């Protein structure tokens, strides 16, 4: 065992050099995108598939190497503050700098990004393989793979970036690819609209992200400009040097900023545009703005509305982008800047509450949806909400573990849904499917495993990650917000129950029972190996990812043996500063002693079983027997089916008024006031004046002479008066 451990902890390549190759991981998919996009039509379908798949595979292999390397204790990413342990990184020079602002092309892979790398390229590779088969009849294959590769490149940029602006490149880049892929079948105006909706909703979030970044720059600068005489003294010289070298938004600088802040949170800022507010308030505002950004990308209230519509895109896209990777960027972002989040209890509780309510609302909507992808989409929104709940209560590792396990089982579910649609003439409506268990055995088996995983049945991975979040929400307390946190926890637990219900419903309606009479084809056919293969792999991963959630690591900390789960232990280097700050400010009250997990686990298990059982009873016993639900429940079902009319509310209160307002502005202000009255009015006045003055130009010399004489005598009179005392 020790030998095995030593083997995995010995880097296969020189850890100090590995950072310089990180750009290759991004460059490969980008190259693939370029080849597919420009030459895809010429080189043909098979070659395009080959290029697209192999570029992601290449990235995956490189990511494996990197992942291996960062387990080496010698792996240290260069940083202005003496290096980041268990990480590799490199700085590839300035991107842009002006004034005192600077951004570098700096990449870094630590345990957090390293895990993301594997998820993105691993799941990405599987989905590319799947998509080659799935899109085998589509004429736009080259476009599709160009976008998909581009997406992988952008997502990798997002997780490898070592500064906020570079992260933002990936952040908007994935949004861009999402826009292109949702609207992939642009012939259908609704699909094109869904793409646009996604992009603009994301842009609202990005607006928050940008402002947060700018305010963060101001915060850093006011920290630097703090007078020497102030308590706590000046920031270190290394800090100012790091800002000059890496720019104020590099993560290394931000981490050091967080280390500088704990004692200053109540201090008023005295210099710069932020003067008057305290550091703590400024930080809270910044974090809330980041939450707006994350809400856009990760589909949280109030910006979640784009994700369900995003299902207009091809199913592999839904699996890769709208389940496994892109939508988890928000969680990744907060893990990255967790050291800032834990300094603001207000921001923490807001994040937790937004997450919990999104999770709950989305689960309620998922109860009644008919499209299998729609159900999965709301399920994704709901699961992402749970992750934000985890972030909010400071259980970063649990939220991130859920990102990983969710990536596996949700990708598997989406691909399974795709397989179902593929085998049933693109039928999406679960009420028109049914009985596929026999006809699509592999799809059925993998879908079942994933359903159980997301439902939280022991011993599948989803159980451990979800329960870790709920457990933390229950036991770790955000200072000053106990009541609200209890609410968040209750909502989270209800969501867990709801998840079991709607997932079981989706599974039962699709795979169990009789085949629906409204089915498009009499018999479904199982998909080809290129599609079922990835399903199997993902299902297996959904099971074995449970290892990360097991409390098997016993470490010595301050003389006490602490039991940690594998993931918590693995991410420890990433969250070291965060944990220090938690201990220092006590904004997060951690449980004094580790209670046994058996009780909560049993509780969670019972919730899942009971709720799933209710679904089984309703859809396998009650409904087939009675034919319909009781009347009193129908209004609720309709309300849920119509997504609580949130889209309509947005349409009615924001989009239409904005359109009306701009049209009115154009008609009234621009056309009438400015152009009509001011501009043409001036022209008219000039013309009129000219027309009047024209009558003075009579050409009558005597008249001119008379006027002249009059004026001259007038002047003379004035001069005389002036001269006289």
């Amino acid at each position: 065992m020790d030998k095995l451990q030593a083997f995995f902890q010995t880097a296969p390549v020189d850890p100090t050099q590995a950072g310089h190759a990180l750009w290759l991981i991004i460059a490969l998919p980008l190259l693939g995108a370029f080849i597919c996009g420009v030459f895809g039509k010429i080189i043909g379908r098979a070659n395009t598939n080959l290029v697209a798949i192999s570029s992601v595979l290449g990235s995956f292999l490189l990511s494996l190497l990197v992942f291996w390397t960062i387990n080496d204790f010698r792996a240290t990413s260069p940083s202005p503050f003496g290096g980041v342990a268990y990480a590799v990184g490199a700085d590839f020079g300035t991107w842009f700098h002006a004034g005192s602002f600077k951004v570098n092309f700096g990449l870094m892979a630590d345990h957090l990004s390293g895990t993301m790398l594997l998820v993105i390229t691993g799941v990405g590779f599987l989905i590319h393989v799947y998509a080659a088969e799935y899109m085998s009849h589509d004429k736009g294959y080259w476009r599709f793979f160009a976008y998909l590769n581009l997406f992988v490149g952008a997502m990798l940029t997002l997780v490898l970036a070592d500064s906020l602006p570079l992260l933002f490149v990936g952040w908007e880049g994935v949004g861009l690819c999402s826009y292109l892929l949702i609207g992939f079948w642009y012939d259908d105006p609704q699909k094109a609209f869904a793409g646009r909706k996604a992009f603009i909703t994301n842009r609202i979030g990005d607006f928050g992200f940008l402002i947060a970044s700018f305010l963060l720059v101001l915060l850093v600068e006011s920290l630097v400009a703090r007078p020497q005489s102030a308590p706590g003294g000046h920031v270190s010289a290394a800090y100012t040097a790091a800002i000059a070298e890496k720019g104020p938004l590099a993560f290394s600088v931000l981490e050091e900023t967080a280390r500088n802040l704990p004692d200053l949170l109540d201090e008023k800022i005295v210099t710069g545009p932020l003067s008057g507010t305290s550091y703590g308030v400024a930080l809270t505002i910044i974090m809330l703005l980041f939450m707006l950004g994350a809400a856009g990308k990760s589909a949280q209230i109030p910006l979640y509305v784009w994700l369900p519509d995003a299902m207009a895109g091809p199913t592999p896209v839904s699996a890769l982008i709208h389940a496994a990777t892109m939508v988890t960027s928000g969680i990744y972002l907060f893990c990255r800047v967790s050291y800032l989040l834990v300094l603001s209890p207000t921001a923490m509780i807001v994040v937790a509450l937004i997450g919990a309510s999104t999770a709950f609302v989305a689960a309620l909507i998922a109860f009644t949806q008919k499209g299998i992808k729609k159900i999965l989409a709301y399920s994704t929104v709901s699961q992402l909400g749970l992750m934000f709940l985890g972030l909010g209560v400071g259980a970063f590792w649990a939220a991130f573990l859920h990102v990983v396990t969710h990536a596996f089982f949700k990708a598997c579910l989406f691909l399974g849904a795709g397989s179902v649609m593929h085998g049933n003439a693109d039928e999406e409506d679960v009420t028109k499917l049914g009985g596929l268990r026999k006809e699509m055995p592999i799809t059925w088996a993998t879908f079942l495993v994933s359903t159980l995983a997301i439902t939280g049945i022991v011993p599948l991975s989803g159980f451990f990650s979800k329960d870790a979040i709920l457990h933390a929400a229950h036991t770790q307390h955000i200072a000053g917000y106990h009541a609200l946190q209890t609410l968040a926890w209750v909502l989270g637990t209800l969501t867990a129950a709801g998840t079991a219900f709607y997932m079981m419903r989706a599974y039962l309606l699709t795979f169990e029972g009789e085949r629906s009479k409204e089915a498009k084809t009499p018999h479904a056919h199982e998909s080809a190996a290129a599609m079922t293969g990835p399903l199997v792999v993902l299902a297996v991963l959904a099971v074995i990812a449970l290892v990360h959630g097991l409390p098997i690591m016993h470490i010595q900390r301050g003389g006490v043996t602490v039991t940690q789960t594998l993931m918590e232990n693995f991410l420890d280097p990433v969250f070291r500063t965060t944990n220090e700050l938690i201990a220092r400010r006590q904004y997060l009250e951690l449980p004094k002693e580790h209670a046994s997990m058996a009780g909560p686990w049993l509780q969670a298990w019972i919730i899942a079983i009971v709720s799933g059982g209710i679904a089984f009873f309703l859809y396998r016993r009650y409904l087939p027997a009675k034919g319909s639900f009781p009347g009193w429940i129908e209004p609720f079902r309709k309300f849920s089916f119509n997504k609580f009319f949130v889209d309509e509310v947005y349409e009615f209160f924001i989009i239409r008024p904005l359109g009306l307002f701009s049209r009115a502005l154009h008609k009234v202000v621009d056309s009438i006031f400015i152009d009509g009255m001011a501009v043409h009015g001036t022209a008219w006045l000039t013309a009129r004046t000219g027309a009047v003055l024209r009558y003075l130009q009579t050409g009558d010399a005597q008249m001119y002479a008379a006027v002249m004489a009059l004026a001259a005598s007038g002047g003379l009179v004035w001069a005389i008066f002036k001269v006289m005392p």
Partner: protein
Amino acid sequence: MNSVFDSRILNLVIFFPLLVGALVVFLPKDEKGQIRAVTLAGMIGSFLTTVWAWSRFDIHSPIEFQLEYRLQWLSDVGISYHVGVDGLSVALVLLTGVLGPMVVLSSWTFVQERVKEFHLALLVLQTAMFGAFTSIDTMLFFMFFEAVLVPMYLLIGVWGSEERQKAAVKFFLYTMVGSVLMLLALFAVYFLSAPAGARSFDYSTMYNGLMGASRELAGYLKANPDGNGVGLTPVAFALFRYGPWLFLAFSLAFAIKVPMFPLHTWLPDAHVQAPVAGSIVLAGVMLKLGTYGFWRFAVPLFPVAARQYQLMFAVLAVIGIVYGALMCLAQRDIKKLIAYSSVSHLGFCMLGIFAFTPEGATGSAYQMLNHGVSTGALFLLFGMIYERRHARLMSDYGGIARVMPVYAAFFLIVTFSSIAVPGTNGFVGEFLVLLGSFKSTLPLWLSVTAATGVILGAAYMLWMVQKVFFGQVTHQENLGLSDLNKRELAAALPFIILIAVMGLRPQPFLDVLNTSTERYVARAMYASGDGPADDRQVRVLVRQLPRPTVAAAAAVPSMMPGPTPDGLPRPARAMMVKPLQPLQPTLQPGQAQVLP
């Protein structure tokens, strides 16, 4: 590493298009192909001259105006032929040079009537714009600035669409109004900035002459914000009384050109009626004459007034951003939409200029280049489809991506640049402008409002893209549209490359721009006391006038009142100026005090 050519490059840059024009004059009228080919070759040659100028620009040099050339010209009234480039102007010159060949390519088949005159107009326009960006003498600048109007007026009025006459007249009169006021203000500055005998229209004389007075005035206003100006030296007092008016006169001229809200209504009309070439040049280069004017003249000459009106102009800029974007949402005409998007984008430029921070100013300058590239490309691309369909409304299109996939791809990439997706050029500019605005003394809510432009920009552009490119093909006549041909590809591809290069490797450009940014911000802050205390950092140092001719030189020693403020001999015209002296007798002593 000075080369003997350095001082001549700008002359070549400015007059090369005119030389080509002279060649075109001699071509027979009916040889349309020849005319086009010669003009294209000339434009490419002209582009190469700008590249040469760009490559000779030394970012490490302490000299502000490089590649300087100065010649005696109308020295009796204090004018000289004086050209030179700083970081901003050399960048804008390069932008003008880049757009030249594209403009010719874009009109290759579109313009079939009066081909010779059309290309002559383009070449003259090019010379005028180069001249405006490189002039250091304000009168020379003014002449070029006005000279731009004539060919553009003709381009719109002769080769435009249905209502071209009206739009051309509106364009011409609108911009003339501002110019007249600016001319008056120029005269005022001329008399104010130096004592009789030392007066000159040269930028250095004007700036250096007002510098000390501005500083004095700023100090005075700081001490007594409500003071009535008693106790100020005469020049400072004149700035106190009339500085805001002079500043506003300059600003009006440039704000119309930019155009800033609410002076923007000529732009949509002009764009809609202008031929493709006109639109590209108008949006790509001409609007920058406005922002450039603020940067070079309005703000540095009147820093105190600029500070007083900072908030007003920043608010107008932000209104421009939001209002322009909202206008876009109300359009049906694609060209109008792009025109209003220019109002929005130029709002960012103006916000950066009035943030008075290095980030904002650099971002603004970069945004000028970006807007030239991305909006130029939008007009170019739209021109291609307009040539095929002769329709401007969004509803005339739909589903174009199916028929013209390559075209759609190009358009989409340019759209992303226009809405500032990171990785494209637009992002760097917008990011820096907003950052600069946040770091400035402007209120935060204003900057936040400006940032909503990021959302609205995506909203209107993608809306337009969807209407035009996505969905089913709704019009029968759109089914047969051919995709881009080789010429069109050649015209569009450079834009795509520029978008990527300027987005991923912005630093070489920013390095050049930063050299002028530092000076611009220092000059804007100098007078308020927040900038560098040392006036040597802001003083404009230029080459002396070349020695006058022998006959004039003989007259110099007796006429020279002593060393002139900027240390440059101002011979020969003292005699001419002398009679004017009594007009400003009170200024004389004050002047002596202010200026070392």
